[in-house]
């Protein structure tokens, strides 16, 4: 049985452990030794994630454990401030391996085991095997420890399994703490039980750092030559102060390649602070880069699309990590930043795709709408109150799906989540005053038109929504009396430029001016302008 010095709780698995622990036990083994460091999804990107974070916070508050939120990646804090050589720290996140820089042993466990550790402060662990690498010599100044980690993984993976403790003996002129943190953290990719620096151990192999060459971790050979759209410098294994400093040096007085999105996420607020004061962040911004908050991750704030390539100096390259169908390349900081300046990895792509400009196919003589029967229609009413804003009609979170049907399934969700399924083409919305206020999002008008809403009758409308609706061919009718006298589910008949009929009563409606009448009649501004421009 290993005596545990500290436990780290930081992610979803930690929360599962907390839940399991709370069922059985009332007191942890030593609250002062349990570090609750929230460094995942900062800030939260959904109500559910925020609620989970609150539950983790509640545990910390209940037992008065050390608590951090959104200020540092856990590995960085524990390595620099807490652990010392020989400590055993149990976590649910491989980031803990970073403490190996101090000669401390980080062990990753599942939720059930963590729950046991929280209760007893002890860890049952089967016997480990050891693989020891002695490091000597000096690394090429253009490289960093990432290339060392990539090389070690390429050559020595067969020697490492789930029970292996990978050990490093530093016989160079003295690696800096951050270099050791980087090496231990990056070696988590090998799937060992733990990674750490140690003083006295017979080595299995010796590596001369001078022989290390630049390395890449590629998803497929095909990424060479491909355009790179995004570069990420950050995370626990990528957001060191040295990385940000180097990024600034390489970007000084330069601009990113066209279309490239460069994101830099410091690993802690301390690093953020120092990088800001040193001017690194300003230089990066002036080159066109974005400075993300400490703890930011590509999966939340640097996404790519299908078939796109992200180059990262962090270790996360799980399939679909930064976006479904996107490809992630891992490499050292210098190469990643140079890629941001070039826009591709490796050599020049052979051909640059040309822009295709569509031309109008034929000129069609527009047919004039002559003497038609006036518009009249009947529909079922859905009723609303005053000040229905466009965030209610079309919430921001669901605004930008590619499919209109998917967007349509969220209309009115914050106020009436059941309504989207019930609306039928031909229905009519009746509202109070100031219908459609708030954001200018035309999608609010467009999606109601797409859903087949024939008209909206309200006491008054907000102006941008009014224009947007007319432009989308949806009829808006100001009628101060009807909304108070109609009930949901009633059927009303609208006679344009005449009246609204409901339960035998006629309600006066405004005259629809000629130009607006034509627009609605034509089906909106697009169809009307197409006629104007002679487009099919």
């Amino acid at each position, binding site marked *: 049985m290993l005596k545990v010095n500290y436990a780290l709780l930081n992610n979803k698995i930690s929360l599962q452990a907390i839940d399991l622990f709370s069922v059985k036990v009332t007191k942890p083994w030593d609250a002062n030794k349990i570090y609750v460091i929230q460094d995942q999804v900062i*800030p939260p990107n959904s109500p559910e994630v925020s609620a989970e974070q609150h539950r983790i916070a509640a545990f910390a508050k209940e037992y008065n454990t050390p608590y951090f939120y959104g200020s540092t990646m856990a590995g960085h804090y524990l390595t620099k401030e807490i652990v010392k050589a020989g400590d055993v720290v149990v976590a649910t996140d491989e980031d803990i391996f970073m403490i190996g820089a101090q000669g401390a042993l980080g062990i990753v466990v599942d939720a059930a085991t963590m729950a046991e550790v929280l209760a007893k402060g002890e860890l049952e662990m089967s016997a480990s095997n050891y693989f020891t690498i002695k490091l000597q010599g000096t690394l090429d100044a253009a490289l960093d420890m990432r290339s060392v980690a990539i090389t070690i993984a390429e050559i020595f993976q067969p020697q490492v399994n789930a029970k292996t403790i990978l050990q490093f003996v530093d016989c160079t002129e003295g690696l800096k703490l951050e270099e050791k943190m980087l090496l231990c953290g990056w070696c988590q990719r090998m799937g060992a039980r733990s990674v750490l620096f140690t003083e006295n151990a017979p080595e299995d192999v010796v590596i001369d750092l001078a022989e290390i060459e630049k390395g890449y971790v590629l998803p497929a050979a095909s990424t060479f030559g491909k355009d790179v759209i995004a570069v990420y410098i950050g995370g626990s294994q990528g957001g060191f102060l040295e990385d940000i400093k180097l990024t600034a040096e390489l970007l000084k007085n330069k601009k990113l390649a066209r279309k490239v999105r460069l994101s830099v996420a410091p690993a802690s607020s301390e690093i953020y602070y120092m990088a800001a004061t040193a001017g690194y962040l300003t230089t990066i911004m002036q080159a066109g880069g974005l400075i993300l908050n400490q703890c930011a991750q590509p999966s939340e704030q640097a996404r790519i699309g299908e078939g796109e390539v992200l180059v990262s100096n962090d270790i996360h390259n799980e399939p679909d990590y930064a976006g479904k169908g996107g490809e992630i390349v891992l490499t050292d900081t210098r190469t990643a930043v140079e890629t941001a300046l070039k826009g591709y990895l490796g050599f020049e792509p052979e051909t640059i795709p040309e822009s295709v400009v569509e031309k109008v196919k034929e000129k069609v003589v527009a047919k004039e709408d002559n003497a038609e029967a006036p518009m009249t229609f009947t529909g079922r009413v859905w009723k609303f109150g005053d000040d229905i804003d466009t965030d209610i009609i079309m919430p921001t979170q669901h605004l930008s799906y590619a499919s209109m049907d998917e967007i349509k399934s969220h209309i009115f969700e914050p106020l009436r989540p059941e309504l989207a399924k019930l609306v039928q083409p031909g229905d009519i919305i009746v509202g109070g005053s100031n219908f459609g206020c708030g*954001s200018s999002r035309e999608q609010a008008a467009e999606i109601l038109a797409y859903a087949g809403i024939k008209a909206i009758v309200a006491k008054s409308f907000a102006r941008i929504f009014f224009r947007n609706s007319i432009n989308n061919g949806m009829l808006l009718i100001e009628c101060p009396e009807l909304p108070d006298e109609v009930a949901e589910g009633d059927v009303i008949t609208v006679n344009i430029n005449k009246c609204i009929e409901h339960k035998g009563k006629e309600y006066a409606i405004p005259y629809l001016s000629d130009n607006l009448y034509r627009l609605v009649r034509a089906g909106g501004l697009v169809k009307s302008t197409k006629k104007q421009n002679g*487009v099919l």
Partner: protein
Amino acid sequence: MGHTLAEKILMKNAGLASIKPGDLITVQPDCAAAHDIYTCKLYEKLKEMGFSKLKYPERTIIFQDHLNPCCLPDDPRLESYAFKLIDEFGVEHFHNTGGITHQLMPELGYAKPGEVVVVTDSHTTTYGAVGCFATGVGYTEMAYVWGTGEMWLKVPETIKIEINGKLPDQVYAKDIVLRVLGDLRAAGGTYKALEFCGTTIDELSVAGRLTIANMVVECGAKAGLFAADEKTAEFCKMPLQDIAWVKPDADAHYEKVMTYRAEELQPVLSCPPYVDNIKNLSEVEGTHIDQVCLGSCTNGRLEDLQIAADILRGHRIAKGLKLIVTPASNSVMEEAMRIGVLQDLVAAGAIVTPPYCSFCQGRTMGLLADDEVMLGTNNRNFLGRYGSPKAKVYLCSPAIAAASAIAGKIAHPNNVKW
């Protein structure tokens, strides 16, 4: 008879000798900008309408301020439309990063005093602070403007809002506009131009005027205008004599005049779930909060960050509270770092985002769980906008936001020990 500021600007643009409220006129916007929430739709509409080029490409601008950083799965695809518009239609001005549209438009000189500007966003009214008639439109409208260079406009009635006197301690531009919104209510300014004047307004910095103009759309207004003065000239880097005409005539006709004495104003907040649900700070002091959002195009300028930093410096935010800070532009953020103000906020526990629409748009980062309460210096608190429809959102000035972040509940800046 004389003309209001709105009438004067519109007259000049339309080339008419005289106009009055209610007239339908044709204007040629001096600038027409779009951002990345709408570039996809704009591209589709331009093609659908049969335009193959833009009438005045030098007047068109694209900002990628909502979706860069790319946080949701479809964002990378949507970001690509800016490049299609540039390559296929010849849009001449482009900002992939750099800040929020409504800060960059006046900051970079796209929105000038006396001009007419349209943008695909409701808070376009912001540039009224520098005497620019600026208003929001949808993407179909913008496609038409980009293709033809013109659009029809109804000349608005103007409501004059006059504020005289000296603002009391801890009362800022944000408190002025919230008070006005509380009096006009959500539809009280619909289709109108609001015109701000008075000694208090004269004393406000351009940053303060931008805060006020930013929020006039929350009462339905078409524009929120300020006359041009020395401060405008300095901010816009234009000679005062060129823009001295950007002021109302003394005998202009107003639909309504609202007057305030600055001394009678108090710190106020918008209370959930409506922007116009205004209460005095004293009425809601002590309300527990979970998240404070400082910044946005409403209050994300250097003076806003400085006010907040002066309060937060040397302190930590309350345990369990999230403080998200969004400067409005790169230059604001760079200056804040140069003088150490941003670092003060970081040291206090802030999570600083890049300058973009971040927390305010409510799409992704900083969303709220069911029982959470947020306090923001931005401009909207609609139901469900920031995640759960059961969450509550208050709006306030940067001073109240900073003090409350330390206290963990809504607090008066003078009641937080520092």
